[in-house]
């Protein structure tokens, strides 16, 4: 049983360069090490606000990030550290935002996973995650207006976001405009504590694709090779003009909703099942059994990941925090129209 859980699927073809598999895995690894570090910083009281980890979701996340090109749009969900790194987000952006460095992209004005660089195609989420999909649609329609071709936008959601009105409005909108949107749902079985059976009543979420006029794809979200195959295909179809693609990955969140949550509500049987396996271990087995990496090479990569995370944290911990006295307290860019501080 353990072997079949972790072993490669012999029928599984690798439809991409082996370097892609290596690169995706290494982003997963850095994300996992970063998550572990953030969790320990949280427990040590070093982080203001929540910490939201991606344990168990790194394979899907990395597959999305690495399958996108420069110039594409990425609206991650809260568990997409791996995908962000694969898309090109600097590790420092993450650490700085979590630790509240004034040098980070959000300058202490927003924190943790609410970070991004819109001009670089990395959209900073608001907490109402479903609302990000139509923003991706907007960038894509702007590309159309400007005659920019061959770009796609990926919006990542959880199973919970699929129940929101904005999710429905936006995927329908993308289909009406036939936009190159790749909507990825990481079905991690629980929206915070609410299980799938209280979230939706269709057999599988991917059934919804047909109703919207989008193309649906299902994938085992614990299987890196499968994720790379399926996600890269969906992205290619969108890029080639096939309209919106809807990818649903099945996996299990191997942590709480946030680090404040012990996740005791997660079903023990689910955790022990194949669907609850750790995608990082699956990916390692895939690398070794395909002769792509030896165990000692995996060890080297892990050491490098630890080193990069430790260096980033050490550097950011020496950086200045934002200073309320130096804030301009101005919420609009047109300074002449700003009322300023009212008495």
């Amino acid at each position, binding site marked *: 049983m353990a072997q079949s859980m972790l072993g490669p699927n012999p029928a599984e073809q690798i439809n991409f360069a082996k370097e892609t598999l290596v690169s995706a895995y290494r982003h997963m690894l850095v994300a996992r090490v970063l998550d572990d570090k953030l969790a320990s910083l949280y427990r040590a009281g070093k982080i203001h606000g929540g910490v939201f980890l991606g344990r168990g979701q790194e394979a899907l996340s990395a597959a999305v990030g690495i399958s996108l090109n420069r110039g594409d749009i990425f609206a991650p969900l809260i568990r997409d550290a791996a995908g962000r790194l694969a898309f090109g987000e600097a590790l420092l952006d993450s650490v700085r935002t979590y630790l509240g460095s004034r040098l980070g*992209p*959000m300058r202490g*004005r*927003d924190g943790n996973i*609410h970070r*991004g*660089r*819109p*001009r670089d195609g990395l*959209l*900073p989420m*608001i*907490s*109402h995650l479903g*609302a*990000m*999909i*139509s*923003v*991706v*649609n*907007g*960038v*894509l*329609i*702007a*590309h159309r*207006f*400007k005659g920019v071709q061959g770009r796609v936008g990926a919006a990542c959601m959880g199973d919970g976001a699929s129940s929101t*009105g*904005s999710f429905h*409005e*936006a995927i*329908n*909108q993308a289909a*009406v405009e036939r936009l190159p949107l790749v909507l990825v749902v990481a079905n991690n079985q629980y929206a915070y504590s609410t299980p799938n059976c209280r979230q939706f009543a269709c057999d599988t979420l991917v059934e919804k694709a047909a109703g919207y006029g989008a193309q649906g794809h299902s994938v085992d979200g614990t299987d890196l090779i499968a994720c790379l195959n399926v996600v890269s295909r969906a992205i290619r179809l969108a890029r080639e003009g096939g309209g919106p693609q809807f990818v649903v990955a099945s996996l299990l969140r191997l942590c709480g909703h946030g680090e404040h949550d012990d996740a005791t509500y997660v079903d023990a049987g689910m955790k022990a099942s194949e669907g609850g396996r750790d995608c990082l271990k699956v990916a390692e087995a895939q690398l070794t059994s395909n002769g792509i990496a030896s165990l000692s090479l995996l060890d080297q990569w892990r050491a490098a990941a630890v080193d990069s995370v430790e260096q980033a944290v050490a550097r950011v911990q020496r950086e200045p925090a934002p200073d309320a006295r130096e804030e301009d307290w*101005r*919420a*609009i*860019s*047109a300074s*002449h*129209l*700003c*009322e300023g501080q*009212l*008495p």
Partner: protein
Amino acid sequence: MSITYLEAIREAQARALAEDSRVFIYGQDVGVFGGAFKATKNLAQQFPGRVLDAPISEDAIVGLAVGAAIEGMRPIVEMQFADFSTVAFNQIVNQAATLYWRTNVPCPITIRLPSGGTLGGGPFHSQTMEAIYAHYPGLIVMTPATVEDAYTMLLDAVAIDDPVVFCEHKYLYYHLKADRLPAEAMPVGKARIARPGRDLTIVTYSAMLHESLAVAEEMASERIEIEVVDLRTVKPLDTDTVMASVARTGRLLCVGESWPWGGVCAEVIARVASEGFALLDAPPQRLNAKDTPVPYHPNLWAGHRPTADSIAAAVRNLISL
């Protein structure tokens, strides 16, 4: 040759489309049909591919506008009725209004809200939303009361790098006319003395300007000279012009078609009371709609919102204090 408030809005959009290739219009029925009120009449034909019908999805409409703005476009969104913008509320106040502050990337979108009561409009086609949007940091809220302002302020709205909620009043669409489109504009954020006076200041905006001016005209025959201040934009609020007027008259009445609780009138009075208390010869007063949904029947509607009669009564009361 005359031009209505509604035509001015259409003309401003036509000019924005003609002069700036980044501008596009997105909303329900705005395309070939020309919009529920015809504010985009012929624009789809005149500017092919740049005036897009949207599904009935206010949330996604504004979300798309934000994304397009991030990518350098200048979208104009038409909400079919201001009342329906509640469905887009999250995108307006949490997405559009926070983007610049969070990321330093501006969000130049214009959201047109056909606002305010008309005969038979009822609870869901009559609302005025300026106070609720002004409450949120990151938004500019315009409330044009004249044909000239409807035209120039809509052009300003498109040119401004921040999200603008443009509250155009449906009651003024057809009735209000000007001889021609203006060649010059007042600066955004500056209130206008619509009528000078020495005895009492009425601060108002949007359709209530015209009710207030009618009262001022009527009262002049009673030798009561009312100064009427048209705020033009409620955010930013031109406190200086208001304060200067109150300094001249010593009496303040704020008139708004919106509900009273936490509204623009409440804000004006709070500012004058806290910053200009010594200027006042009498307690500042306000007149708003009743604190109920907007009624359907004209008899009830006339009793719900301020009218020239109720404004005149409020003026007489304030003069007597």
